């Protein structure tokens, strides 16, 4: 809008002097920057600067003895040879491949159910599933930590009341599943909402046409709803990739309850956090964080390209 009014102003100007025109052109360029400035300032200080600073940090080594020295790519070389980093990475990949399909399948089911208009109180249903997303994730992890307690928590109460012996959800075999459960609980409603809003954009004519053609409910889902959902599904999937790879709050909060089963390098983010705060290894932590960021970007990019390509087909 601004550009077009400016253009109009220039066109109306009767002076054909080339130098004046260039001056005006220059001014035009700066006016554009002026409009961009508020965003640019926030972008540079809040987004670009921290990343640049982390990259800068990752090229140094600050030791307790000997102080701060330039280390080149040493931190990165160390990161790629660090078995602790690989075990953390492997754990979030496993988490991604198990938790995300379950969560997205449930979200899809909930979105389709909501869209089917067969529910009695759709608004109540929607708000109930979405509510956990409004709970801060630290609070959610704390709450589930209490539920998981085998002695004083809900699990403990169930065990003693019904004489059951539910295994400890925080034992080493189950702890990752316990966290997956928390994440599913928290993000199911959120993903459901993304998919549901995509379903609402489907033109009514399509359903009418399907009705006329005599398509059943499942045929409508397969031929109309699922294709319409695809791009929303890809968005939800990308968010889930990022969420899984950045898993932090749940293990960090539950660690006080189960320090032996949740190691300091349980996830890459936790590893970076513990390196910088317990070991004062800011530089190495910065390198780990950057490597992890790049890996996440690559995975998210792959998911996006694959998803979009399918859509084009």
């Amino acid at each position, binding site marked *: 809008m601004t550009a077009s009014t400016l253009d109009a102003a220039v066109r109306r100007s009767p002076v054909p002097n080339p130098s004046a025109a260039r001056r005006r052109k220059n001014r035009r360029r700066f006016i554009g920057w002026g409009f961009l400035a508020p965003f640019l300032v926030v972008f540079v200080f809040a987004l670009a600067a921290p990343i640049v600073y982390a990259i800068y940090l990752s090229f140094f080594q600050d030791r307790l003895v000997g102080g701060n020295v330039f280390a080149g790519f040493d931190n990165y070389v160390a990161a790629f040879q660090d078995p602790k980093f690989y075990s953390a990475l492997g754990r979030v990949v496993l988490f991604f491949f198990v938790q995300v399909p379950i969560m997205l399948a449930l979200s899809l089911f909930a979105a389709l159910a909501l869209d089917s208009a067969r529910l009695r109180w759709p608004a109540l249903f929607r708000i109930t599933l979405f509510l956990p997303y409004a709970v801060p994730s630290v609070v959610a992890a704390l709450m589930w930590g209490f539920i998981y*307690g085998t002695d004083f928590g809900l699990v403990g109460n169930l065990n003693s009341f019904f004489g059951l012996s539910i295994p400890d959800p925080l034992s080493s075999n189950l702890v990752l599943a316990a966290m997956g459960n928390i994440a599913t609980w928290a993000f199911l409603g959120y993903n459901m909402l993304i998919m549901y809003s995509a379903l609402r954009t489907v033109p009514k004519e399509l359903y009418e046409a399907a009705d006329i053609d005599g398509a059943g409910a499942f045929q409508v889902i397969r031929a109309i709803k699922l294709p319409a959902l695809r791009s929303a599904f890809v968005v939800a999937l990308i968010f889930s990739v990022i969420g899984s790879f950045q898993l932090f709050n749940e293990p960090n909060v539950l660690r*006080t309850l189960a320090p*032996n089963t949740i190691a300091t*390098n349980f996830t890459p983010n936790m590893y970076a956090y513990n390196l910088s705060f317990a070991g004062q290894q800011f530089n190495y932590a910065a390198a780990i964080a950057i490597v992890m960021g790049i890996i996440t970007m690559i995975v998210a990019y792959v998911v996006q390209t694959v998803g979009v390509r399918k859509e084009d087909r």
Partner: protein
Amino acid sequence: MFAHSTKRRRLAGVLLGGSVATVLALTGCAGPGGAAGTPTPKAVATQADIDAALQEDTTLQFWAWGPQYQAEVDAFMKEYPKVKVVLTNNGSNATEYTKLQNVIKAGSGIPDIAQIEYTALPQFAFGDSLVDMAEYGVASMEDKFSSSTWNQVNVNGGIYGLPQDAGPLAMFYRQDVFDQYGLTVPTTWEEYYETAEKLHAADPSKFMAADGGEAAFTNAMIWQAGGKPYAAEDTDVTVDLQDEGSLKWADMWTPLVQEDLVEQTPTFTPEWTSGLSAGKYATWVGGAWAAGTLQRRIPEAAGTWRVAPLPQYEAGDTASGEQGGSSSAVLDASENKLAAIGFVQWMSSADEAAKIWTDNGGFPAQAATLASDDWLNAEIPYFGGQQINQVFAASADGVLPGWQFLPFQAYADSVYSDTMGQAYASKGDLADGLKAWQGNIVDYGNSQGFSVNK
């Protein structure tokens, strides 16, 4: 810089003529830790300078988390109205140390005084973050404190804090549980194991103790077993978690873990508190401060707990170790070092301060209090009127000398769960866990520029 020098001039102006030069020399060559490690510390200020500084308008920032400190600060300000002490709770131990490390690194917002446990003192002393109080003549206070606490504020020949409390080990036990199952109080670790077996066989839902595997507890137990796994002189560090004492403890404790005679519940979690309250754990081996913890955390269990001396490896021994205990240290960045030292001296050694400390459930580090009849003979209603301080005082006497912590103990403790924790979780041999822990510590130390085990 300008503000700095005017402050110095003002400070200098109030001091007695003779000491002006020395004070200026002190603030001028604030090169941290200048005298650290030297055998004869050069005095930079006298007690008179410190006393004079306490009559000046000063504000001191003090970081501590113990429940007794507010009362101490209030009483101090009543006695020295010109000095204002602002107490801030920045979280318990590791949380506070992280914040402290951050402000030291940032160079601003550094408090004048901080509560620092003996475990973390070498780390901050090594980083030249603390004032070596030996330069201010505090060495003469040695006989005011128990020898084990005094030994722990001594780092590399300097005195980096004054002892505030201590944690000599004792065995807390549930009299009601012992009575119910006809158990006798064990005096050796062998008896401890047998008692544990008996109890768990009689009621599988009961355990001899809760131990989820914790660095502080492991260190204390190795200390009692005569181990000296850590040694540091400047940057030369030795870590030997396979020494005789360490293995002695590991061999004794492993069966308790493997046979589920101790339950793996981390301390200070809700699970643990409810277990302590319900009598699920028959004993708790911990520092003397645990007496205060029990009274505060589970007041409903009053009358059920008693205190016994720590079980021994050889019948008749009195060996003990320490778990926890804090010193009060003055930060090197403080601009009010003299007043800060004066405050720390008062809080750690004045009679009134000692009384406030023990009245509020703190365990004393002062030799005079440890030997006073009032304190020794106090009958504590919570413990069925038992004179528990006698047990603690005997334990303090039995603390084995020569223990040292690493100059990076906080990190070592933070990776304990990654290594020893695995041994606990898999119910393996704790000696193997110690070995893995040592490997982690050695790697970190060397990567930080120390020469560890070289």
